[in-house]
Each structure stands twice: as structure tokens, then as C-alpha cells.
């Protein structure tokens, strides 16, 4: 008898737990790098932790790190959806098609794809206007370079990366007409060894300021070692280059993630396209180093403030494309459509953009 009671109690407990579990909103994340990259994936994971802290027991988050872009991503996403996820954030450009494919099979699971442009009824896209941050650090780089050579470690020739190069170049050029950009494509988001080699190659070619669009702080470490300047990418990266780091572009995903999870809980989630910048706080500019002269820092800050206020757009004409054909007339501002699919260098950048 006693045994039966305890059995019944256990069953009730199990049912109760199951009941509590199903009331929880399950939130999944997949990252392209390790959460310990201290760059891109790290910041997305900070967003995930913020979601956990904000909602407490009302949500359960899971993540899978270092998921290759492509077929593997599809497998991981399917598994997550089968595991009962209510909303899944896919945090790299290359997850675009896998996200769309898996979303088709799971119409009741909401997907949020970062930095892509394909949407569906249950797929939203979101990205940050990193190019606004690139404009600010471009201004600083243009002023700080003494060799007039800025090295740029680029990952893949996708619109987001191309946009960043163009924005930084235009800004640097506006304060330093002699500035030259050297771009190295490493074809990876995360490979500290290769990123370090690329930084060394650029320094060898005379670069004294390094910008990067890859995820690890390797280039910052090299810059510190070689006594040149660099900028934190995605994360602040201060600890890797206390002397080298001039400023940084920090991704702050937490408010967006909290808002979207809230929408799922409230049942008000719908497919949207979010592209926020410095204004709403999705892109933050890291503290300026005291290596930056006061007047330069003031101008950079003014540019950041103007961008936040909407009075300055980093892509304001006149701007020509690399081949000299006009793109924007004087005073004209780039529309989001062109920016989202940007596949050309602006005039003045040397070298061929890989297609």
C-alpha cells in the first residue's frame, strides 16, 4: 500500500514536472564558432544569458556551438526543432538556406536568422548596422595611421563584410585623402592561427592600423605585439591589446533577443526584418583609447551621435563604384535594399572583390 502511494506520488510529481516543462518556452541558439571565441559567437551567447536572466524559469535555453555552415546546420536545427524548441536563433549568414529549409518543415517553430535576407512566415531576419560602427572606427583609423595604410582582415565576400570595408574606407578617406586599404580574405570566420598570419602579412606590407571582420582576438594580440593599432570586433577585446586597441564595435543582442522571446511567450511573434544600429543600441562603440587625440575622439563621438540621431548616414553621395560608375549622387543616401545586397567596392579601394 505504502509502495503504491509513493508510486502514485512519484507519478504525480512526474506529471507535474512535465506540466511545468511544457509551460516553459524553449529557446535554441546555434553558433558558428565556440562561445569562447570572445568575439561574434561570444556576444550572441551573452544575449542568450541575458534572456535566461530576464525570464528566469519561464524559459529554457539551449545552444550548439561551432556548427559548420551548410548541411550540418540543417541537422542541428532539425534536432533542435524536434526537441521542442519554440524559437531558434541561427546566428551566422551561412545558416540562411538551412534555416529556410528547416523552417518549412516546422511551421510552428519560429526562426530568427541573423544577417541574412531570406524570410518566411516563421522566419524573421535581424542584423545590426555594423557599418555605422565601421564609419566611426574608420574615421579614427584614417587619423591614426602614419603609413597611410590600413590592413583589413576580411572573412567571406558577402554583403555584410563588403559593406563594412566600404563604410570604413569612405570614413577613413574623408579625413585622410592619402589612405589606402589592404584587404586580405581568409575565408573563415574563426581560425586564430590564420587570422594572426593575415595580420602579420598586412603589417609586413606597411599597415599600422588593423581592422578585422573575423571572430577571434588573434589580430588584436598581434597588433599589441607589433606595437600598432587595432579595433575590437564584435566584443571589446580590450584585454588582448591594452595598448593596441583604439576602440571597438560591440554587438549587443540582448534587448532584441529578450523582445523576440517575449513576443513568442505573448503569442504576438510575427515575421519581421530588423536592422538596428547605433541609435537603438544594437551596435555599441567601445570606449575610446587615450591614444586617440582629444579632437579626433571628439569628432568620432560626434559622428556616432549624428548616426544615432539619424542626421548622418555613412553612405551619403557623391560615391562612385570602384570602376568609376556613379552610385550615389551628391547628398543622396543609400537605400537599405542596395546595402543589403552590396557586392561592389567603392571607388578608391584597390584590388578585386572576389565574387
Amino acid at each position, binding site marked *: 500500500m505504502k509502495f503504491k502511494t509513493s508510486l502514485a506520488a512519484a507519478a504525480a510529481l512526474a506529471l507535474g514536472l512535465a506540466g511545468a516543462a511544457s509551460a516553459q518556452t524553449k529557446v535554441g541558439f546555434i553558433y558558428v*564558432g*565556440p*562561445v*569562447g*571565441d*570572445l568575439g561574434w559567437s561570444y556576444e550572441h551567447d551573452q544575449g542568450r544569458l541575458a534572456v535566461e536572466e530576464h525570464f528566469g524559469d519561464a524559459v529554457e535555453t539551449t545552444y550548439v556551438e*561551432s556548427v559548420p555552415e551548410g548541411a550540418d546546420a540543417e541537422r542541428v536545427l532539425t534536432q533542435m526543432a524536434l526537441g521542442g524548441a519554440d524559437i531558434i536563433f541561427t546566428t551566422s549568414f551561412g545558416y540562411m538556406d538551412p534555416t529556410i529549409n528547416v523552417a518549412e518543415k516546422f511551421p510552428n517553430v519560429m526562426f530568427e536568422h541573423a544577417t541574412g535576407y531570406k524570410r518566411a512566415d516563421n522566419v524573421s531576419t535581424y542584423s545590426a548596422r555594423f557599418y555605422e560602427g565601421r564609419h566611426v572606427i574608420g574615421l579614427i583609423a584614417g587619423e591614426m595611421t602614419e603609413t597611410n595604410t590600413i*590592413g583589413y582582415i576580411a572573412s567571406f*565576400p558577402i554583403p555584410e563584410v563588403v559593406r563594412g570595408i566600404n563604410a570604413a574606407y569612405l570614413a577613413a578617406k574623408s579625413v585622410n585623402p592619402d589612405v589606402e586599404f*589592404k*584587404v*586580405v*580574405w*581568409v*575565408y*573563415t570566420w*574563426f*581560425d*586564430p*592561427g*590564420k587570422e*594572426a*598570419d*593575415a595580420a*602579420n*602579412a*598586412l603589417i*609586413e*606590407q606597411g*599597415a599600422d592600423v588593423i581592422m578585422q571582420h573575423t571572430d*577571434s*582576438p*588573434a589580430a588584436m*594580440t*598581434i597588433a599589441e*605585439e607589433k606595437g600598432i593599432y587595432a579595433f575590437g570586433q564584435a566584443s571589446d577585446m580590450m*584585454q*588582448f591589446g591594452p595598448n593596441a586597441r583604439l576602440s571597438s564595435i560591440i554587438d549587443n543582442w540582448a534587448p532584441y533577443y529578450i523582445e523576440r522571446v517575449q513576443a513568442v511567450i505573448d503569442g504576438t511573434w510575427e515575421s519581421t526584418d530588423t536592422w538596428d544600429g547605433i541609435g537603438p543600441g544594437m551596435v555599441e562603440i567601445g570606449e575610446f583609447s587615450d591614444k586617440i587625440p582629444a579632437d579626433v575622439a571628439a569628432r568620432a563621438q560626434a559622428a556616432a551621435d549624428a548616426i544615432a540621431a539619424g542626421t548622418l548616414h555613412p553612405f551619403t553621395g557623391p560615391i562612385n563604384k570602384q570602376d568609376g560608375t556613379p552610385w550615389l549622387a551628391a547628398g543622396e543616401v543609400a537605400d537599405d535594399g542596395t546595402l543589403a545586397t552590396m557586392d561592389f567596392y567603392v571607388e578608391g579601394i*584597390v*584590388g*578585386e572583390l*572576389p*565574387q
Partner: protein
Amino acid sequence: MFGDLSLVSLIVSLMIASTPILFAATGELVVEKAGVLNLGVEGMMLIGAISGFAVAVSTGNPIVGFLGAAAGGAIAALIFGVLTQYLLSNQVATGLALTLFGTGVSALMGQPYNGLKPPPSPRLDIPVLSDLPVVGPILFSHDIMLYVSLLLVAAVWYFLYRTRGGLILRAVGEDHNAAHSLGYNVILIRLGAIAFGGACAGVGGAYLSLIRVPQWTQDMTAGVGWIALAIVVFASWKPYRVILGAYLFGGVTVLQLNLQALGVNISAAYLSMTPFIVTIVVLVIMSANRRKTSLNAPAMLGRIFHASH
């Protein structure tokens, strides 16, 4: 085309980029010569990278750090050794598991070390010689560990082909039953080789975290361990060819980055493919003569030894 590209600094940076591969591949060569296939190189490198980093940071001495890396790599390898040699588990599966294990364990061990700076490694600085214009930077002013990697290859060659111990190790790799019937302890010899391979992989990983990048980042080897495995086949199990393979791969990687920085008008996509293409092409050429290749591969590679008497 090479107008602005300094050949000297190119050679210097290719040597640095190749050294982690060279360490790991040399270690794996010895393991394979003993007839064991350990696919866990990537995992052992990661464990070595963090062990070396942790020890170097806490002692302030990079050389002690490298010893720690060797110990870390060897311990990880011995887990593989016990599983495959005593418990007779499948070597391929156990090696892959070791890589997964190493990735996870190193990430866990590395948590407190994110963002720390390792102590600088000592460099060779010989008066006059190190200051020579071309020869100085290429030959006489590297960090100590780079010379160790080259000496290691020479030592491994000498051991394998000029000592009795090397002969026994090769005999174990060629025919473990014969070696056993001659009274050699096959399992102990293999465990020694496995531990040595792990130590080398560990030092290779630490070269990455202490010298090439100097920082600890999770998963920082990014596939170098797999390249090292390929280099062993590429070298057809000959020590001096490991240098060739490692420097070729590292060299092409560094060269393509430098060509891009120089602004050479070749599509970057093709350039970044080149290290892999070159490796594959050479592999194909070298294995074209099937009989010759199979002659080089240790006959007992990957086979389980189980003494029945």
C-alpha cells in the same frame, strides 16, 4: 610581382606558421611507425595548447609551459593508449573520440585563461650571426622552440634508422606477432610511442597558444591536427619529408595571405584554396605508385595486437 614582398620575412613567417604542424606530424609519424593510428591529434593539440598556456601563465616560464604541454598531450594520448592497447578498442573510433574529448576538455580547462597574456618565449640572439642581413632572420633569430622542432625531426630520424630501439619500434609496426615472438613487449613499446606522439602534438598546440598567436582561444587549432595527419601520409612516413610537407603547407598558406596583402591580382578564393590543392596534388603524385606507397606504410597500421600466448 614580388617587388614589395620581402622574401626573408615570408620565409620567417612560413616557418612559424608551419611549426605546430611539424611538431604534431613528427609525433604522429612515430606513433604510426609503431603500427598505431591515432586520429586524436587535433584533440591532443588542443589539450597541449591549454596545458602549456596554463602552466606558462602560472609559472611565468614559457619553457616550463612547453613541458606542461608535452605532459598534457602525453596524458591525453595515454588514455587512447590504454583503451586501444589494453582494452583493444577500435583505433579509428577511439582516436576520433579523443579529438572530441580534447575539444571539450580544453574548452573547460581554458575558461579561466580567456584574455590572459602568456610570457614571451626566449629567442635565439647570437651576436653578429643574428644580425646578418638575410641569413640572420632566417636562421639565427627564431624562438627556441622552432629549432627544437627541427632538432626533433633529426632526432626521430636518427632514432628510427640508426638505433636498435628504432629498429624494434619499426619491427613492432611492421609485424607485431614476429616482434612479440622475439620477446619484445609490443604493448609497452606502442604505449611509449603513443605517449611520445601525444607529447609532440601537445607541444605543437602550445606553439600555437604561446608563440604563433600568443593567446588562448577555444578550438584555436582550427583543423591543424587533421592537416598533420595528412602530412604524415604525404611524407610517406619519412621524417625529413615531414619537414617538406609541413613547410609546403604552411608556406603556401602564408604566401597566399601575403600575396593578397600585396594586392596581387589573383582571385582570393583561388589563393586560399591553394594550400589544400597543393597538398592533394602532391598526395596524388606520391601515391601514384601503389606498390611503393604500400611498401612505406607500416604493415600493422591500425591493427589490433592481441597476444594469445
